[in-house]
């Protein structure tokens, strides 16, 4: 019997010829990641058991991105603890402010993760790196601590669901729309404990940034990992960046899947996920009249350069509605600089938006864009849970950068057609 990509990567990292879904294995890790919220808990565990050294100072990434630039004394102390740990153990990839970007934007960009890797991160959106043909999954702080000590993690080999995307994409339909549609279809626990393998001609044509967006949100369907087989586009992306040797895996033709789900993408409109679950999706034509207060364009889901370009395409020569606060957050310093050089900042500022330094801040209601009671936001982020962006009685609507930008202009949830048709 053949194996899926996920099974092949796990087998290789466990030193086995083959693995089967349900099997418990111990796998060697290429990267162990933590941020400023999860690393302190991991460091406490690491020190509690008297561990003195990390397994490999080159394979640990510490990215303080959630409450940075630090919003208060407590969050500054959390980062200080991470910084001191990084210094003590000579961690190569500690990202100080200035180099720091949103973790799932910066790790691929800096070539720290690549095809064939096995990666754990104490952040649920670690599944983003599946876009490079890697096995990457979110874990908690204790798993991170164990990973930093041993360089290994135990896994139950997941079953895989194969998603096949066919047909021609409608204008302004992006990877974000495809993944929101998928989560709307299978539900927030539709892929619980499973690998989501994204395939088909639409995926083959999808730019890398959109692939990252899709794999990023696998966790929102309960997935253990999202994965897209590395192809020429992937290799073009990693060449010159990825510092180790890429190992490209393909699923065998006779690999076994728990399910195969096919979508005709020509029928998929821009999507909006209504509060308070990412599965509450509607096509833009069925959204109705929903007045909003804030728009956020950024995050590990949609803070990449092509996302900012799309937002700028709609905001160019336009003004955000007078009652709208529009926040644009480039994901990394490199994306920030690129956007600045391309003149995108002028477009955003002329439109009345603001541009922030890289941070996860507003996505999780941390800082830099908190909602008051009763307020509504359209956001390119990945979660719209109760209280996610602020007050428990505020609301978050998830959408693509195109829909977010159009909504900022109209002051209510709006799609590209409404802005372009005027």
């Amino acid at each position: 019997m053949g194996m899926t990509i996920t099974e092949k990567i796990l087998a290789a990292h466990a030193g086995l010829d083959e693995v089967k879904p349900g099997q418990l294995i111990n796998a060697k890790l290429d990267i162990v990641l933590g941020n400023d919220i999860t690393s302190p808990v991991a460091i406490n565990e690491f020190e509690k058991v008297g561990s003195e050294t990390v397994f490999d100072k080159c394979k640990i990434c510490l990215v303080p991105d959630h409450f940075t630039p630090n919003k208060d004394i407590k969050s500054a102390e959390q980062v200080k603890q991470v910084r001191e740990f990084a210094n003590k153990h000579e961690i190569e990839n500690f990202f100080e402010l200035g180099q720091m970007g949103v973790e799932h934007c910066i790790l691929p960009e800096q070539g720290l993760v690549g095809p064939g890797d096995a990666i754990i991160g104490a952040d649920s959106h670690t599944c983003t790196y599946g876009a490079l043909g890697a096995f990457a999954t979110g874990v908690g702080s204790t798993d991170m601590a164990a990973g930093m000590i041993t360089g290994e993690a135990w896994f139950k080999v997941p079953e895989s669901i194969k998603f096949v995307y066919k047909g021609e994409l409608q204008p302004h339909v992006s990877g974000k729309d495809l993944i929101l549609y998928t989560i709307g279809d299978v539900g927030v626990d539709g892929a619980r404990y499973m690998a989501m393998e994204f395939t088909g001609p639409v995926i083959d044509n999808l730019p890398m940034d959109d692939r990252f967006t899709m794999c990023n949100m696998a966790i929102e369907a309960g997935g253990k990992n999202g994965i897209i087989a590395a192809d020429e586009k992937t290799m073009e992306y990693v060449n010159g960046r990825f510092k180790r040797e890429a190992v490209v895996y393909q699923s065998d033709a006779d690999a076994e899947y728990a399910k195969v789900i096919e979508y005709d993408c020509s029928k998929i409109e821009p999507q909006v996920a209504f509060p308070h679950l990412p599965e509450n999706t509607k096509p833009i034509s069925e959204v109705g009249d929903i007045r909003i207060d804030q728009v956020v364009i950024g995050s590990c889901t949609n803070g990449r350069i092509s996302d900012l370009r799309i937002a700028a395409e709609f905001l160019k020569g336009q003004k955000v509605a007078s009652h709208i606060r529009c926040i644009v957050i480039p994901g990394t310093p490199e994306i920030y600089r690129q956007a600045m050089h391309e003149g995108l900042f002028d477009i955003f500022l002329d439109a009345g938006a603001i541009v922030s330094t890289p941070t996860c801040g507003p996505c999780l209601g941390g800082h830099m864009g908190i909602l008051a009671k009763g307020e509504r936001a359209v956001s390119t982020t990945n979660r719209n849970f109760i209280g996610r962006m602020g007050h428990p009685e505020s609301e978050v609507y998830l959408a693509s950068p195109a829909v977010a930008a159009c909504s900022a202009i109209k002051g209510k949830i709006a799609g590209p057609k409404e802005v372009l048709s005027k």
Partner: protein
Amino acid sequence: MILQGKVWKFGDDVDTDQIIPARYLNSSDPKELAKYAMEDARAGFAEIVGQGDIIVAGKNFGCGSSREHAPICIKAAGITGVIAPSFARIFYRNSINIGLPIFESKEAAEAIEEGHEVKIDATSGVIEDMTTGKSYQAVPFPDFMQELIAAGGLMNYIKKNKMDK
């Protein structure tokens, strides 16, 4: 190990933002986090929950963030066990790792009501609703996870099996 306590009931898809809102994640102190346990699912929960109480919830409990602060704050608030038809993957793993007993049973989760007194044999996975006298069997843990639980969580297991080698 026998767990016994009063039941607090929650719905489907209770996410980690409801269990411990991100606005409190500038601390990793369990006692501090416990003050806000389940706050956005039920305001003031930390003040009414008693030591030894048990949470019974709907499907996909703990979906969302990888924040281990979620099982940590529930445990620190006095909750000794959680029963649900299913748990989100990272929450499940974190709970085992930190030693918060969790039990998968659709029947128990659906039948047991708020305020009932429940007794759980954590070793056998037998859940008894003392109020109605009905019993339920939770899905047993695989052997490896039982080893982790017996060792007192992942770090003790690592210490015993990996660091002393």
